């Protein structure tokens, strides 16, 4: 029962008044299931967000409330076992992207996403993280990146991007204003994104740099739910930023990395507040709004892209707040062909690949099933191009487009902006 003990201790550690008051507010109405793309696509009641939380609830009630203790003692409430933990590990890592849509429909307003993250913390303490995901975490610990983007690889890739797209990528510039930290997904799989962001920032005359210390913005420790690993990876970025003396850190098209760095880091590491953390989506909005870059109106209406729609990422739009900028930009770039899916904005349906799910081979079937909801949504507006601001979503989209043999074009907002720049 050591796994159980470790998990329970972690749950207890996670539980302050903030968590407890929300667990107490739950009426077990089950409405959160209506919001969950994994439940909606599969019909499996175990995928209801409230059920994924079950272990945290039991831990709280049995450890912190008299009545809960009594109920467990006389057998009215089940104690947590090692088998439970294994089962809930699958529920939480295979079938949850921590997208927090459930919080939008909870009549109590419980911030389920944060609580579900707490469940992961317990599972990670019990060493019950799925092997694929854990391997990626360990790779990031050892090599600095879950995708094997070591220092040498990073060097070589950026060199190649700069060469191939003829764009300057300032490296390790002391005294620059802005540090840009790309995700390895972009560097390794969507290099055009790297080129696009470099092109835009250069055009705007931004004093920016990348850092060989802060190479990787992705944070697999955050997926895992391990505070220790999350902090380790955040610290690498902060060290790079400190060394170069920048004022702000731009997180590129990566959702959970932005969530971790912008909305959590300061609560773990106070020095995080020495820097302004902003997502590239916000930067694009800023640069266009201030007239520092100009984009060609209607550029994407004419290039045979068909109807264009925008996919809201859970960590950048719903949990990040960059909801309006992409719309403003797309309304300039494609006033005629941009159409919204429903539901959208903060109520958007998650792509199904976030939260580390896409890194877990055993979750593939569940992940593709969840993506069927997205296919419905996109087909309803008849879109042929889907734009987004998150490379993890983009990975899920490109992979699923291949899996389902769809004829969509999948693209990133930064790339669209770069393509439509007025030279």
């Amino acid at each position, binding site marked *: 029962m050591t796994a159980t003990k470790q998990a329970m201790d972690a749950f207890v550690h996670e539980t302050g008044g903030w968590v407890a*008051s929300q667990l107490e507010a739950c009426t077990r109405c089950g*409405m959160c299931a209506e919001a969950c793309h994994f439940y909606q696509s599969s019909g499996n009641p175990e995928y209801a967000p*409230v059920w994924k939380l079950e272990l945290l609830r039991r831990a709280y009630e049995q450890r912190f409330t008299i009545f809960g203790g009594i109920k467990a003692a006389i057998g009215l409430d089940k104690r947590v076992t090692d088998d439970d933990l294994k089962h809930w590990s699958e529920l939480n890592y295979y079938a949850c992207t921590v997208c927090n849509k459930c919080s939008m429909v909870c*009549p109590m307003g419980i911030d389920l996403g944060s609580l579900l993250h707490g469940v992961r913390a317990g599972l990670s303490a019990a060493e019950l993280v799925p092997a694929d995901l854990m391997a990626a975490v360990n790779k990031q610990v050892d090599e600095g990146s879950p995708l094997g983007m070591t220092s040498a690889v990073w060097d070589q890739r950026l060199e190649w991007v700069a060469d191939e797209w003829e764009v300057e990528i300032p490296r390790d510039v002391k005294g620059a204003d802005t540090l840009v930290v790309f995700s390895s997904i972009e560097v390794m799989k969507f290099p055009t994104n790297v080129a696009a962001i470099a092109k835009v920032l250069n055009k705007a005359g931004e004093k920016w740099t990348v850092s060989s210390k802060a190479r990787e913005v992705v944070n697999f420790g955050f997926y895992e739910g391990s505070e220790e690993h999350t902090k380790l990876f955040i610290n690498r970025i902060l060290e790079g930023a400190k060394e170069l003396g920048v004022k702000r850190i731009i997180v590129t098209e990566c959702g959970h990395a932005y969530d971790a760095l912008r*909305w959590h880091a300061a609560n773990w590491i106070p020095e995080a*507040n020495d820097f302004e953390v902003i997502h590239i989506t916000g930067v694009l909005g800023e640069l266009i709004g201030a007239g520092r870059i100009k984009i060609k109106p209607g550029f994407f209406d004419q290039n045979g892209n068909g109807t264009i729609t925008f996919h809201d990422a859970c960590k950048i739009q719903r949990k990040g707040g960059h909801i309006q900028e992409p719309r403003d930009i797309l309304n300039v770039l494609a006033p005629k062909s941009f159409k919204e899916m429903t539901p959208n904005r903060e109520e958007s349906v998650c792509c199904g690949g976030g939260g580390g799910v896409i890194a877990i081979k055993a979750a593939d079937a569940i992940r593709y099933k969840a993506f069927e909801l997205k296919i419905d949504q996109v087909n309803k507006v008849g879109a042929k191009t889907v734009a987004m601001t998150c490379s993890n979503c983009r990975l899920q989209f490109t992979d699923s487009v291949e899996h389902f043999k769809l004829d969509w074009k999948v693209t990133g907002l930064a790339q669209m902006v770069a393509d439509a720049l007025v030279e």
Partner: protein
Amino acid sequence: MTWESVLEFARGPFFYAALLIFVAGMVYRLVNVIGLGWNRDRVPVKGSKTSGVVMSFLKGILIWPFIPWVKNTFSRNPLIYVGGGLFHLGLFAVIFLGTPHMLVWKSLLGFGWPTLATPIVDWLAAVAIIAMLILLVHRIVNPVVKLISGPAEYVAWLLVFLPMLTGYMMTHHLWFQYDVLFSLHMLTVDVLLIWVPFSRISHFIFYFFARTIHGQEFGKRGVAV
């Protein structure tokens, strides 16, 4: 023992004892939760926490419970949403805006307030009772709610349902003598009061915590709640 003496007991010493347990129990629950400690949020705010909280309550209380289509998530399952809303509406109307209950409050607090006309309260009570029956069926039939319901959920349902049923029967003089129904109403109310601190019915207090947190979390990110 006559019904008269049962009633005397149920609305006298038992009621006050139940009330005491209710208040003491809820205070204990609150202290227990608050005592777990709260971390300061050091994350810089993008929007406004205050406006998030205000919107969270406005929407949570006035809009969402009754208009499921504002959240198109519920297009598949509006019944549970409307059912829950109507049950709470009826319950609150009866408890706070029904004349007999207002008089109880007045005797406890020392002041009263205007109430709704009896037929309106009566209809709302009937709606609440019907909503409860629908929610019970839903709890048994819906795979998710069935999975997350243990004995505690059904006990809580029954203990809320009985005072509502006896209260309704009593005002309509159905089947039993008034004294009998009044006694049963008071007894079931007393039991309910005692049970609240031990059950999830206590969500009426923690609701305010959760809604505030929700408003803060979305407000600080500048996202509509």
